[in-house]
């Protein structure tokens, strides 16, 4: 898989919610090669503070040369990113890692929690464009309605069935998004479930899938320095606990749920 270092131009910075932004960049090489579930490493500052690049999933590619990121401001790097305006330059490396792999699944379910929703939009669009399976369901969760903002609408606009859950019940199901699996997925079908979100959410989803015998792919996070398998910083334990660690940036970020240790 090809990787690039690109000086991307900021085309648009949109504040979707108080802390959540959508950034559209011109990055032709990365856009042309990106697959859903892959990520980029973004240099958020020209100086040494912050020093390391920040990993962000590709939210979608637009046309042949644009990359869109969806991110939440949680610290220094993302705060700086949110100050970028159209016309400014941003250095990206990518596309990095292995994305979701959907051979010829007949029934696909995407489960996103919080910012884990970011890569699923790209995935949903690709699914609809390419395989267009008989069944495709999207389940989105967040702590509260305000955290989802326009995202559910974006998925619905694609024409895909979308169910929502919020921890506080302010929108959709009152409870965890993993609980929607049993409510909405026909247990007779052989589902392929693609999940991205907080660790406990993915653990619950992976557990459900195992019980049902469904295939499950999860997109993991880890603190990263290089993003390309060189530093070995992004280790996560594999299912076989005594085996070598997996590395999120190189072996993932998308893993088969059964490869991973759910501690």
């Amino acid at each position, binding site marked *: 898989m090809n990787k690039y270092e690109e000086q991307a131009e900021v085309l648009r910075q949109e504040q979707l919610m108080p802390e959540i932004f959508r950034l559209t960049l011109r990055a032709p090489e990365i856009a042309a090669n990106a697959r859903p579930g892959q990520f980029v490493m973004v*240099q958020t500052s020209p100086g040494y503070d912050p*020093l390391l690049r920040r990993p962000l999933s590709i939210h979608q590619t637009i046309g042949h040369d644009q990359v869109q990121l969806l991110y939440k401001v949680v610290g220094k790097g993302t705060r700086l990113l949110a100050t970028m305006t159209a016309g400014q330059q941003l250095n990206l*490396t990518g596309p990095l890692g292995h994305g979701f792999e959907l051979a010829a699944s007949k029934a696909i379910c995407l489960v996103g929690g919080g910012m884990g929703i970011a890569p699923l939009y790209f995935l949903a669009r690709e699914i609809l464009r390419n395989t267009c399976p008989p069944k495709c369901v999207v389940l989105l969760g967040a702590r509260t309605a305000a955290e989802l903002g326009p995202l559910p609408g974006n998925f619905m606009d694609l024409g895909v069935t979308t169910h929502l859950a919020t921890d506080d019940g302010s929108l959709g199901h009152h409870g965890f998004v993993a609980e929607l699996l049993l409510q909405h997925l026909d247990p007779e079908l052989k589902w392929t479930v693609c999940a991205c979100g907080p660790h406990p959410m993915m653990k619950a989803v992976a557990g459900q899938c195992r019980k049902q015998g469904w295939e499950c792919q999860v997109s993991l996070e880890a603190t990263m*320095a*290089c993003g*390309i398998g060189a530093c*070995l910083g992004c*280790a996560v334990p594999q299912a076989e606990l005594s085996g*070598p660690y997996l590395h999120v940036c190189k072996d993932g970020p998308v893993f088969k749920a059964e490869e991973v240790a759910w501690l």
Partner: protein
Amino acid sequence: MTTPDLRVSIGSLFLKNPVLTASGTFGYGKEFAPYVNLHYLGGVVVKGISLAPRRGNPPPRIVETASGMLNAIGLENVGLDRFISEKMPYLREIGTRVIVNILGDSLEEYQTLGRRLSEVEGISALEVNISCPNVKKGGVAFGTDPAMAEAVTRAVCAHSTLPVIVKLSPNVSDIAQIARGAEAGGAQAVSLINTLLGMAIDVRSRRPRLANIVGGLSGPAIKPIALRMVWQVAQAVKIPVIGIGGITTTEDALEFLLAGATAIEVGTANFVNPRASQEIVEGLGRYLTDNRLSGISEVIGGLILP
């Protein structure tokens, strides 16, 4: 105009230019092939190799600090056999020097690594990481005692036909003394610095940010300390010195060369700018041209004292 002469020699090891990549920050070379023309580099120092594969430390292994980072990878590596069978075939073809960083927890392990790697085609030198704990001596790091540094150097040199570079730990009172130990043990060169021991705490969870509690500090933050140590060591030993620590730009590299380093290694900067090493090679060439210098040797040790 003639192209500037960037060639240097580290003992019997000739380099087309003084820019190497630091162990553990450049994988096994291949990872950076999308960004860097590897054959432009003076050489590649690969991730530290031990006799048996190592799992390394549990995560989290990395945390960012002010202009730096802490790592507690725990020397995860594929082990000698897989390194030779899986990584060397690619490395043999990259068109530059391959330097293998080695680590062990006993003199015997270092010896075996030295002997076995000497038999492998395509390796130009060994870099001996002596920041590791000596299990037989109660876990004190080889690199904190001049006699132990000398012993481990001698062990590798006696069993290896390759040039031996000894990589020094900065967590000591007098690094020049350790360097002299390595020199006495037969090292062709010393490289420094390895990471400085550091720590970070998450005040919300009240837990260390690294599962290993402590880790190694690297990056621009440590450059002033590294530069001071390189300068001290360059005055203390006759063998060449390789400078490491926070080198990110051509100017940084020049500082180390002026302080007396014959070559430098680019570490953490590879993560920030994957093209850093190649850009420094190009920058050094430009510097020579701009300053009408015929070769990089006119820079090395060229610090003017007040």
